[in-house]
């Protein structure tokens, strides 16, 4: 504790007060245990049911998780890709003359192998894609750049799964075909589009440092699942079903040093490779490419080339290891409130104020000590919970989604800050109401109740998002690792782990509440007779 003078000695005194009441110390230690302990309940319940034990020993029954790109980001990488080899610099140009699709709104595929698309409805998905692709081989998750048309989001340039640049928002029809072009110059790929093949507009560029000399270039089509989320009180239900898209490229031109002929995936080849029962039903059975016009192709595909949004049953998110934060938070709120209200209850506040007649400094010293200690508790608790819970999930052969080290540090430090700011909030409310039970109840209702309502799948998505935006519960965004990708349709609700605000903005909402309560507490403490 620095200094024997001024503010430092008040901080020293408040630290002595805090550490010399055993109940409070136990409460703070308990906060760390609750955070880790509740977090452990998640993996305790993790269990992978294997229904194919006949052909695999139990120990090989595990969740593999989705494929990953070079950075570790989970991705979807499934499309129908007609490709050939390009070595060194060059370009690909193609004209997309028709783009349509089918989807299955009732969720099921056709049961009839002779007519796999029977019962499907005509129409594209918002993020159905058809376009040209430059890719490091055909391996899943490899680097790429693409210029493509979408179902409803216009023409775009995308690369390496997570990057997306909008071009003109036009729909492609047989009456209004679209020209697409990608050029490679070293590591730089530039995307263009054109209405007539004569006047070209640049959409964007990508630097793909890892791209080898020889790449696969060509045209592709893919289409993500149809999904409709119905949300109401009591939770939400999601209707999903397969979809397919068909793009017709009547002209394809490749400049530069090409080798070999076009590799054309045959209709149904992906389904045959899958080989599972039911593979000959639905879109996979009809995915593939056939020649069209002179040197063109009609390509039918299903799937997506995009980042993979964690969904139900697909593994655990890193932030699920911090699901116990609310437990630790309650303990911290109780201790923080009681450090103030017990002084009022016992009359000790008069001793404190006599020792520090500058009352604002007394409140500030308490805030510094409670905030600092809660931050340390949060740092230890989250620092243990994240690796420990993840390790247990792994030991149960669950898949845990990727988070960069930087993101993990943000989760841990953010959780510590969440506890620290909540402690100051509780202190301020306690100073205002001067009653322990009332202060604890008020802060829990302000922070934890909206958090539970928002994530517990009891409210419609709109109400849950509103709570996660305007109440102090917004601060839980600081733990979010999953990304709401604009180029992927998914149910981005707080229930699924997606908060409406960015991590630090969410924490900022809590900070605003804490600052407002602190200002009122400061004013009241200074004005009131003790």
């Amino acid at each position, binding site marked *: 504790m620095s200094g*024997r*003078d001024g503010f430092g*000695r008040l901080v020293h005194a408040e630290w*002595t007060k805090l550490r*010399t009441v055993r109940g409070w110390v136990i409460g703070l230690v308990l906060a760390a245990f609750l955070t880790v302990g509740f977090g452990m309940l998640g993996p305790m319940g993790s269990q992978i049911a294997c229904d194919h034990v006949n052909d695999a020993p139990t120990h090989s029954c595990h969740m593999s998780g989705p494929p990953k790109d070079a950075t570790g980001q989970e991705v979807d990488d499934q499309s129908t890709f007609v490709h050939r080899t390009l070595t060194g610099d060059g370009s690909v140009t193609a004209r997309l003359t028709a783009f349509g699709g089918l989807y299955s709104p009732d969720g099921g595929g056709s049961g009839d192998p002779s007519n796999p698309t029977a019962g499907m409805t005509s129409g594209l998905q918002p993020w159905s894609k058809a376009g040209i692709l430059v890719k490091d081989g055909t391996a899943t998750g490899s680097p790429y750049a693409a210029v493509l048309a979408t179902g409803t989001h216009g023409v775009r340039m995308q690369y390496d799964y997570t990057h997306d640049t909008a071009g003109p928002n036009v729909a492609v029809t047989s009456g209004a075909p679209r020209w697409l072009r990608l050029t490679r110059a070293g590591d730089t790929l530039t995307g263009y589009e054109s209405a007539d093949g004569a006047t070209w507009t640049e959409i964007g560029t990508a630097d793909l440092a890892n791209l080898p000399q020889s790449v696969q270039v060509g045209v592709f089509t893919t289409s993500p699942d149809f999904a409709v989320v119905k949300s109401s009180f009591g939770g939400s239900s999601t209707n999903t079903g397969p979809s397919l898209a068909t793009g017709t490229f009547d002209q394809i031109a490749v400049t530069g040093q090409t080798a070999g002929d076009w590799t054309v995936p045959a209709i149904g080849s992906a389904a045959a490779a899958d080989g599972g029962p039911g593979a000959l039903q639905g879109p996979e059975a009809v995915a593939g490419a056939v020649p069209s016009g002179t040197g063109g192709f009609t390509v039918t595909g299903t799937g997506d080339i995009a980042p993979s949004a964690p969904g139900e049953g697909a593994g655990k998110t890193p932030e699920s290891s911090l699901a116990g934060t609310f437990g630790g938070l309650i303990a911290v709120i109780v201790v923080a409130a009681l450090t103030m209200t017990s002084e009022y209850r016992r009359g000790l506040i008069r001793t404190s104020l*006599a*020792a520090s007649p500058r009352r604002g400094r007394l409140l500030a010293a308490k805030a510094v000590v409670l905030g600092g200690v809660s931050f340390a508790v949060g740092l230890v608790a989250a620092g243990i919970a994240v690796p420990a819970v993840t390790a247990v999930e792994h030991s149960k052969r669950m898949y845990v989604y990727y988070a960069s080290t930087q993101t993990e540090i943000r989760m841990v430090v953010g959780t510590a800050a969440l506890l620290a700011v909540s402690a100051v909030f509780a202190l301020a409310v306690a100073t205002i109401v001067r009653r322990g039970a009332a202060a604890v109840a008020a802060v829990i209702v302000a922070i934890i109740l909206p958090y539970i309502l928002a994530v517990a799948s009891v409210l419609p998505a709109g109400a849950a998002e509103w709570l996660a935006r305007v109440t102090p519960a917004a601060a839980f965004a600081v733990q979010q690792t999953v990304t709401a990708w604009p180029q992927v349709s998914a149910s981005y609700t707080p229930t699924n782990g997606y908060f409406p605000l960015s991590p630090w903005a969410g924490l900022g909402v809590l900070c605003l509440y804490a600052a407002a309560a602190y200002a009122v507490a400061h004013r009241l403490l200074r004005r009131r*007779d*003790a």
Partner: protein
Amino acid sequence: MTTGTANPPPAIAVQALRKRFGATAALDGMSFDVAAGKVTGFVGPNGAGKTTTMRVILGLDAPDEGRALIGGVPYGKLRRPLGHIGALLDAAALQPGRSARNHLLWLAHSQGLGAKRVDEVVAASGLASAIKRKAGGYSLGMRQRLGIAAAMLGDPPVVMLDEPFNGLDPEGIFWIRGYLKALAAEGRAVLVSSHLMSELEGCADHLVVVGRGKMIADTGVAELIARSSGGRVVLRTGARAEATTALAEAGGTVAVTGPDTLTVDGLSSEEAVRILNADGVPFAELSAHRASLEEAYMDLTRDSVEFRAATTQTSTQASASGEVA
């Protein structure tokens, strides 16, 4: 008030304090000074404004008007207040789960003092053997000692105690009286409040008597008792009737105060002895009466008690008419 360099400001100066709590005037022009080197008793009935005055002195309550100064400085301006004035307002104001020593320790830290000073005041308080125990288990007497130890942490020149005798056993009362006298002998100003005059007997050098939020008397204890004793003689005799006749003839006012005791007003003890000897009236003992502090206090406040009753009546009428209006 003029303060020259030759006259240091009083240890505590209470200047025309007024404070209302709703309809009640808790302080109604309270003024007095407390001097160094004396134990000043701060006496008055419950509700007279003693505790409110002390809270204002410590900056805990804000007066509506007036001010209180410690050595010429308002409390809020003191940077290490416990080095200027040590106070015990409420001995029960302790966190029950915290040990007595840790209570003193945080208070010491708040003033930039260390554990060494805590050990010193603990040794002087006589609590050394129990200091590691939780304060919640302390008896009232131990809490009073702990509160006094806390007040002495900053080695202050001014000490202020609110009702320190409350709930103490005779040994505790004796200890506090001695301790307060020792503090005054060291040159400190000691202000100690009580609603029972007898508690201050043999301890206070000076009295500030208050009632209904204002000061009624500000006087030295010796003068007050001398004034109250005023030429009264106590006589023990078996010949009550003869003595009464003789003394009354000589101009004394005689009252029967016991089976064989008379109290005589208006004659000195020498005159009474001469008259009784001259008339041959036997007596067992004759002494000049010395009023107790409590008697002196009752003499002093008799008028103001009547004044209080009148005021109460007036204010009742006022509030009644207020309701009608």
